[in-house]
């Protein structure tokens, strides 16, 4: 693991420990009361859920063009993180919605396209696991379509009739609500980088293992 990993991991752990304190001290919201505080974890998860497929898509495109295994490993790691953060977003969202909207789920543009994006990431992982040889290139092709879905998820909430809050909420936040949010965003971003690094290390070690098996046979 690189040198910055351990200090960063400690920092990240501390940030996650402190975050509930900051969140508890934030004020309640006018119409939703305290349940809106799910937002402090829901939104950073959602942003990571949108970042990961973009990383996956870009890495996949680079892999298709350059053919370097490092790009492919990054794409695979990013796809796994898409599934992880997607799961967190798609669970915390409905928990919040149950109280704020009175329903667990609505089939609006943002939620539907988010679910679709999550399923594409699952499809990527299934393909890598069961597709056999050559599935790295195939999965790269699928990842491109997943990446194209991301801008759609993000802007759809501004253009379609929906009860999901639009993107204007974040810039309009008051300071005492904004500080915990950006703190959590930073914590999640740091976590994202740490998890990517670990996952990449796993793939690199697996590649080394394959090389050793080949060397052993010689």
């Amino acid at each position, binding site marked *: 693991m690189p040198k910055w990993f351990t200090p960063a991991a400690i920092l990240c752990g501390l940030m996650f420990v402190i975050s509930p304190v900051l969140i508890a001290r934030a004020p309640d919201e006018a119409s939703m009361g305290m349940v809106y505080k799910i937002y402090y974890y829901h939104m950073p998860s959602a942003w990571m859920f949108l970042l990961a497929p973009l990383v996956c898509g870009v890495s996949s495109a680079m892999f298709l063009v350059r053919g370097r295994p490092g790009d492919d490993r990054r794409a695979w790691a990013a796809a796994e993180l898409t599934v992880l953060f997607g799961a967190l977003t798609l669970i915390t969202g409905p928990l919040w919605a149950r109280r704020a909207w009175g329903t667990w789920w609505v089939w609006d543009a943002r939620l539907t396209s988010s679910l*679709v994006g999550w*399923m*594409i990431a699952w*499809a990527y992982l299934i393909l890598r696991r069961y597709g*056999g040889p050559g599935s790295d*290139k195939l999965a790269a*092709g699928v990842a491109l379509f997943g990446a194209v879905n991301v801008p759609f998820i993000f802007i759809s909430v501004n253009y379609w009739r929906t009860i999901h809050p639009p993107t204007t909420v974040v810039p309009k936040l008051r300071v005492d609500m904004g500080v915990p949010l950006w703190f959590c965003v930073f914590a999640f971003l740091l976590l994202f980088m740490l998890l990517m690094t670990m996952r990449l290390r796993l793939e690199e070690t697996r590649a080394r293992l394959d090389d050793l098996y080949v060397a052993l046979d010689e």
Partner: protein
Amino acid sequence: MNATPFGRSLWLVLRKDLTVEVRSREIAYTTLFFAASCVLVFAFALVREGRAPEGGAAGILWIAIAFAGTLALGRTFERERQSETLRALLLSPMPRPAIYVGKLLGIVALLVGTELVLVPLVVFLFNARLFAHPFWLAGIVLGGTIGYAAVGTLFAAMLVRARSRDVLLPVLLYPVVVPVIIAGVQGTTALLQPNFDAVLVRFWLLLLVTFDVVFVVLALWTFEAVMSD
């Protein structure tokens, strides 16, 4: 060796597929029968006291198209795999995009042929007044079919040599084309409304066209990149 011109390559690929299909009619018949069975199953399952469910026709139509499309895609590329013709095409001096577009048009033709039977069937079984606005209907159905086929042709071609390809095609294809299916269903539902709103239908049609353009362009690039080996 000079590359064969795009238009000629495209026509060669398309003509080959159409000729084989017209002679055997195997995929056309099986796809059609499967799609009709789909619709009938929904009819039996959802009809209550002789009345069809409200607003169900649009969804059922598109599900039948999606399923029939998966079958058609699988069978078409299975045929390619058996005679290794896809490999031969890729080794030939034909430009790759032409191969992709040729196969795409073949699949679209097959699906449109199926839809020519499917739409009247849905109209008949579910009392859906789909023919009230035939040009809008044609636009929506064609737009959705092209979007679906654009991604389907790419993925089916990519999976030709993969393991578990039968199961992997739906797994990969359905999440990606859900936006197209939804737009198709919404557009078709808008057509069925008693107070017809052309603005709404045009919106869904434009959305379908957007998806089609994005998917075809992306698929063209991806086909080139993935199939070069």
